[in-house]
C-alpha cells in the first residue's frame, strides 16, 4: 500500500521538478504595446522569486506560482500580475493591473533564453536635448544613452527627475528602449533624421507622445532642480508626523535640534525614491558624527497606517536605513503639497529639503537623478555632498 502511494507521489514530485526546470533561466520577454513591442528580461527559478530586469537593473516580483503549464507572477507592490501559459520554449499571456475604468491588460510573451546584448551604434551614444510635444505644448526632456555590457542603456530626464533605467537595442538608424518595473510601462522609440532624432514616447498601453531631440551642446536644457520648489525661510521648517510605531516625531526632537537636517519627502511606491535611498544612507553614515541628520517623510499608498507602516519597515530593512521614517500622508502630490504649507510649488517625489543648524530651509532639491542618469547622478551626488559640507561648516 505504501509503495503504491509512493509511486504516484514520486511521479508528482518528478513532474513538479520537470515543471520547475521548464521555467528556470532567463526569458526574453515582451509587452506588446499598441506602439510596438517593449522588451525586458525575466529571470526565473522554481522556488525563488522572479526578477524583472531592464538591462542589468532588476526588481523582484513578490510571488511565482507554476501550476501545470500556467505561470503566475505577482507584483504585489503595484497590485499587478503576469499570467501566462508555457508552450514549449515560449510563454504567452498578459500583464494586468488595477484600473478604475476596467482592467489594464497588456499582451505579454516571452521566449526561453534572454535577449542578446547588442552594441549600439556610436551616433546614438551621449546626451540629447529633447522636447516632448503633446497637443501643441512642448516640455523639455534630456536623453542619456550609453553603451554598456547588456547593450544600449539610458534614461529620460525631466525637470523633476528621471524615468528609471531604459534598456534596448538599435538597428541601422532606429532604436527602441523600454522600462518596465512591474508598474510603469515606458518605451522610447526613435530614428535619426539628419542631425535630429525624432520618435515617440509610449506610456502604458495607449499613450504616445511625439518628441524631437538634438545633440546636447552642454547648455542647460532642463530647469535646475533647485529652481522648482520654493520654501518659506522666514521661520524654522516644521513637521509633525508619527513613526512606524505611532510615536509623534517633530522638528523639536532632540535628535534634530542644532543639526543640519535633510528632510526626504518620498514614498515606498516611487522607483526614483528607491534609487535615492542608498545615497541618503551613505550620506548619513558619512556625516552623521559631524551633526548631520535625515528624516524621511513618507507619502504612502493606502492611508492605512498598519499597511503603510509595514511597507515602510520593508523599505527601511531593504536599504538598511538608519534614520527615522515617518508616515506623513498618502501619495497624492496635491494633497501632499497641502501638508507642507512651507513649500511652494511642490511637484515631485522625492524632494530633498536641506535645513541649516538654525532650523531654516537652505535649499530644496526637487526630484532625483538616479544612477541610470550616469554623469547627472554624479553631479547630484557632488552637489548633495557640497551642500551638506557647507551647512555643517556654518
Amino acid at each position, binding site marked *: 500500500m505504501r509503495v503504491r502511494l509512493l509511486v504516484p507521489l514520486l511521479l508528482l514530485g518528478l513532474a513538479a521538478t520537470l515543471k520547475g526546470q521548464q521555467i528556470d533561466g532567463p526569458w526574453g520577454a515582451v509587452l506588446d504595446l499598441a506602439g*510596438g513591442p517593449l522588451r525586458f528580461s525575466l529571470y526565473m527559478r522554481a522556488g525563488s522569486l522572479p526578477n524583472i530586469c531592464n538591462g542589468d537593473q532588476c526588481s523582484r516580483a513578490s510571488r511565482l506560482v507554476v501550476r501545470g503549464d500556467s505561470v503566475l507572477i505577482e507584483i504585489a507592490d503595484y497590485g499587478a500580475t503576469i499570467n501566462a501559459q508555457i508552450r514549449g520554449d515560449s510563454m504567452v499571456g498578459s500583464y494586468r493591473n488595477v484600473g478604475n475604468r476596467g482592467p489594464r491588460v497588456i*499582451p505579454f510573451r516571452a521566449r526561453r533564453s534572454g535577449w542578446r546584448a547588442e552594441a549600439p551604434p556610436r551616433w546614438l551614444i551621449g546626451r540629447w536635448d529633447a522636447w516632448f510635444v503633446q497637443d501643441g505644448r512642448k516640455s523639455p526632456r534630456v536623453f542619456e544613452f550609453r553603451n554598456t555590457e547588456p547593450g544600449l542603456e539610458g534614461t529620460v530626464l525631466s525637470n523633476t527627475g528621471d524615468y528609471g533605467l531604459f534598456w534596448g537595442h538599435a538597428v541601422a538608424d532606429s532604436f527602441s528602449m523600454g522600462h518596465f518595473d512591474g508598474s510603469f510601462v515606458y518605451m522610447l522609440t526613435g530614428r535619426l533624421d539628419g542631425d535630429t532624432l525624432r520618435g515617440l514616447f509610449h506610456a502604458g498601453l495607449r*499613450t504616445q507622445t511625439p518628441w524631437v531631440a538634438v545633440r546636447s551642446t552642454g547648455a542647460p536644457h532642463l530647469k535646475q532642480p533647485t529652481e522648482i520648489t520654493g520654501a518659506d525661510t522666514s521661520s524654522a521648517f516644521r513637521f509633525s508626523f508619527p513613526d512606524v510605531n505611532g510615536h509623534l516625531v517633530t522638528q523639536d526632537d532632540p535628535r534634530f535640534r542644532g543639526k543640519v537636517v535633510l528632510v526626504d519627502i518620498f514614498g515606498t511606491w516611487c522607483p526614483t525614491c528607491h534609487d535615492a535611498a542608498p545615497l541618503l544612507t551613505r550620506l548619513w553614515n558619512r556625516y552623521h558624527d559631524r551633526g548631520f541628520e535625515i528624516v524621511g517623510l513618507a507619502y504612502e499608498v493606502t492611508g492605512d497606517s498598519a499597511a503603510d507602516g509595514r511597507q515602510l519597515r520593508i523599505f527601511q530593512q531593504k536599504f538598511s536605513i538608519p534614520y527615522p521614517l515617518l508616515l506623513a500622508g498618502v501619495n*497624492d502630490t496635491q*494633497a501632499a503639497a*497641502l501638508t507642507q504649507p512651507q513649500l511652494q510649488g511642490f511637484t515631485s517625489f522625492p524632494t530633498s529639503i536641506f535645513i541649516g543648524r538654525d532650523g531654516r530651509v537652505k535649499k530644496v532639491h526637487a526630484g532625483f537623478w538616479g544612477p541610470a542618469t550616469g554623469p547627472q547622478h554624479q553631479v547630484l551626488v557632488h552637489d548633495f555632498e557640497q551642500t551638506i559640507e557647507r551647512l555643517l561648516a556654518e
Partner: protein
Amino acid sequence: MLFPLASVRFFSMRLALLFLSFAPALLQAQTPPDLERERADFSSWMASALNSPLATRAVVPVGAGVRIGPENSDVPFPGIDARVTEQRGTLTLRIAGSDRTLPRYRPVTSGELTVMALGEPGRTLLVVYGGSRRSKTPFYYPYNNAAVYVGAIQPTAHTAVRVLTLEGMEVEATEAGTVSVPDGAGSIRLRVYRIPEAGTEESELMIFFRDGTSDKGSYPAGRFVTLLPLPDGRYRLDLNRARNPFCAYNSVYPCPAPWPGNTFATAIEAGERYQRSTGQE
C-alpha cells in the same frame, strides 16, 4: 480622413474571401482574439472587481462631509457607520472609531464597505461600494470590420475643457484634435479629447459619440471609444471597441453630456449594446 482598415486590406481580403467564401457569416461575425480577450477581461472585472460599477452603491461629492450608515445618512448602508471628510485636500475616513487617511483613485476596504475618492482636492467625488452587486453583463453587436479606421488626428486649437469621464468624474481634458470618418454618403469630423490618468504620464484619446443606434439598441447618452496608437504615429479607431459609460450599468453614476458635433447621421452597429432595464434585475 481616417481610412477604413477594410479598404487598406482590400487586396488580401479579396484573397481571403476567395478561400473563405463558404463562410461569409463567420467572416462577418468573427471577433479578433485580442478584442475577444479584452471583452472577457472586462466582463470578469465587472463581475468581481471591488470597484466595479455593478458594486457601486452611491457616488456623492465629499463637500462638507459624507456620512455612510443609518437610514437618514447621506449614503444609507445598514450595518455601517462611517464618515468621510476633506480638510485642506486630505481625506479622512472615520470608521469604527478610528481615522485613516484616504488616498485618491484607490479603493479602500473596511469590512463590507469599500470607498474610493476621485477628482481633485476641493472637488472630490466619493464612490461607495458594497452590499448587493447588480448583475449585468456587457453585450455587443457582431464584429463589424467596416467599423475600423486608421489615420492621423487633425490638430485643433488644443483648448482645455472640463468634461465628465466614462466613470462620471469631472476632469480637465484637452482637445487633441479631430478625426474624420465616413458617415453614410458623407463624412463626420469627430472631436477627440485627451483624458488624463491621474498621477501618471498616461492619458487616453477618447471620443464620446452618439449615432443612429443611440436609444435604439445602444446607450441613449452615447458611447466612448479610445483611439489606439500605432507604431507609425497614426491611430486606429475601432468602433467595435465602443463602450458604455458607467451610468449605463448603474444609475448612481452621473452621465456625461454629449460632446458637441460627435453625432453620426447613420447607425453604428458595432461595439457595446444596451437594453433598458426591465425593473426585474
